[in-house]
């Protein structure tokens, strides 16, 4: 991967990567010591920033590509719509055809991807607003009970991120083990790859064919059985990962009880058991909903395969908006 510079270039590459790591660690430290905005963690903020930067750069990309069989085409849908509608002959039929082509083109990001992204945005915000039934928080004085809402998306978009990361790691390992033509019987049973040039590859058979999202669904309607298998796999794994994450991470039931109820209140045993059951149910239903939303985003084609990443970014943005709204309301109340 390093060029022909030898040890000097290798040392320079190591220094550059070390500087990048220091920048990331300092950003996280700045956030963790109280100088950042509450409500989201620094890692989630960086992942969401990366996803939004990718989406915006795809939308407004001024790169002009020369496709085979067609004229020059802008990569970004905004410039492509403007260019094609302006360059079409001045009859409504040709301009409508140009608009429809930009809506439905397959090899580059198109406008229907972004319309699906807007629909996914609305659905994710609506899901995040849903709370399960409210629980009681008992104060020492009788008659002053309070309600503690528990979000439906209790584990946010973490199960779909864990699922996508696990599938990607499995694909990378299998791609390396089956490099250089045909391997053994087990390797061929797990999947076969076809080279796509530039270090990329896509699966053409076996297990990796079904665990990866089906691409080009509009071209081949016969892939509906693959879509069904993939949907069941994604939804089931997201549900299981969400329940496991709710148990293992720092948003578990014990941490939730300590953080929300605090140490100054008395909690009945029945309330504790009810909180545990509601958190487990919220994690399962939230994982199911996130998996279904990711399958929908991937099937209809929300910016290629970036459905889970944008779903994660949407939820992070919504948490930031909640923090801003709460702060502005607090400032209004105090002033």
């Amino acid at each position, binding site marked *: *991967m*390093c*060029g022909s510079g030898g040890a000097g*270039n290798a040392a*320079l*590459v190591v220094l*550059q*990567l070390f*500087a*990048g*790591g*220091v*920048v*990331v*660690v*300092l*950003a*996280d*430290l*700045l*956030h*963790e*010591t*109280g*100088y*950042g*905005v509450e409500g989201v963690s*620094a*890692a989630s*903020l*960086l*992942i969401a*920033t*990366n*996803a939004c*930067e990718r989406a915006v750069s795809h939308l407004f990309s001024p790169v002009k590509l020369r496709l085979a069989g067609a004229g020059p085409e802008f990569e970004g849908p905004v410039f492509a719509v403007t260019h094609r509608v302006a360059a079409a002959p001045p009859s409504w039929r040709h301009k409508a055809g140009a608009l429809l082509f930009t809506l439905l083109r397959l090899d580059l990001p198109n406008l229907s991807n972004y319309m699906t992204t807007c629909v996914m945005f609305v659905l994710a915000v609506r899901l995040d607003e849903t709370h399960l039934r409210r629980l009681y928080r008992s104060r020492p004085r009788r008659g002053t009970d309070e309600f503690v809402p528990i979000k439906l998306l209790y584990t946010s978009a973490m199960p779909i*991120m864990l699922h*996508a*990361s696990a*599938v*990607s*790691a499995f*694909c*990378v390992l299998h*791609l390396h083990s089956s490099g250089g033509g045909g391997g053994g019987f087990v390797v061929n049973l797990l999947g076969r790859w076809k080279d*796509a040039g*530039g*270090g*990329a*590859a*896509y699966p053409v058979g076996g297990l990796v064919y079904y665990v990866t999202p089906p*691409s080009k669904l509009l071209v081949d309607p016969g892939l509906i059985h693959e879509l069904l298998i993939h949907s069941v796999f994604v939804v089931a794994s997201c549900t299981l990962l969400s329940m496991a994450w709710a148990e293992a991470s720092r948003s578990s039931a014990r941490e939730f009880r*300590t*953080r929300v109820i605090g140490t100054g209140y008395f909690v009945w045993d029945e309330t504790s058991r009810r909180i545990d059951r509601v958190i487990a149910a919220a994690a399962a239903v939230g994982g199911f909903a996130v998996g279904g939303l990711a399958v929908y985003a991937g099937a209809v084609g929300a910016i*290629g*395969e*970036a459905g*889970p*990443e944008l779903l994660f970014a949407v939820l992070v943005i919504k948490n930031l908006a909640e923090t801003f709204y709460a702060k502005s309301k607090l*400032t209004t109340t105090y002033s």
Partner: protein
Amino acid sequence: MAVAAAVASARLLARLLPEVEDSSTNAGGVMAVSFRRKVLYTAVSLLVFLVAGELLLYGVQNYYGGGEHDPRYWMNAMSASLRPTVMALGLVPLLYSEMVVHLCMALKIIGVHDDRLPDHRRRL
């Protein structure tokens, strides 16, 4: 002997790197940073991250990764790494260092003494 030399080198390196001071020591334990300043710090951090994500690495041949057919796409998306740039590692230094520290704590190799925070807000 080698372990002591490694610990001394690590301490020397840690002293050379910059550090973020604790915000609760500014005003006697009270969180003294206003919300507008928090927004400013967060925006500046994200801007630094975005600018570093556009700087190409010197000394590396241009590797065209990413896109829909790259199997490493989701590992890159999960760790917020941009492949041929300074941010090629992404969140990997953050996540793996936290993982290693948690493992050392679980195996009782290192001990953590953190008496600034109350018991229900103890971190790490």
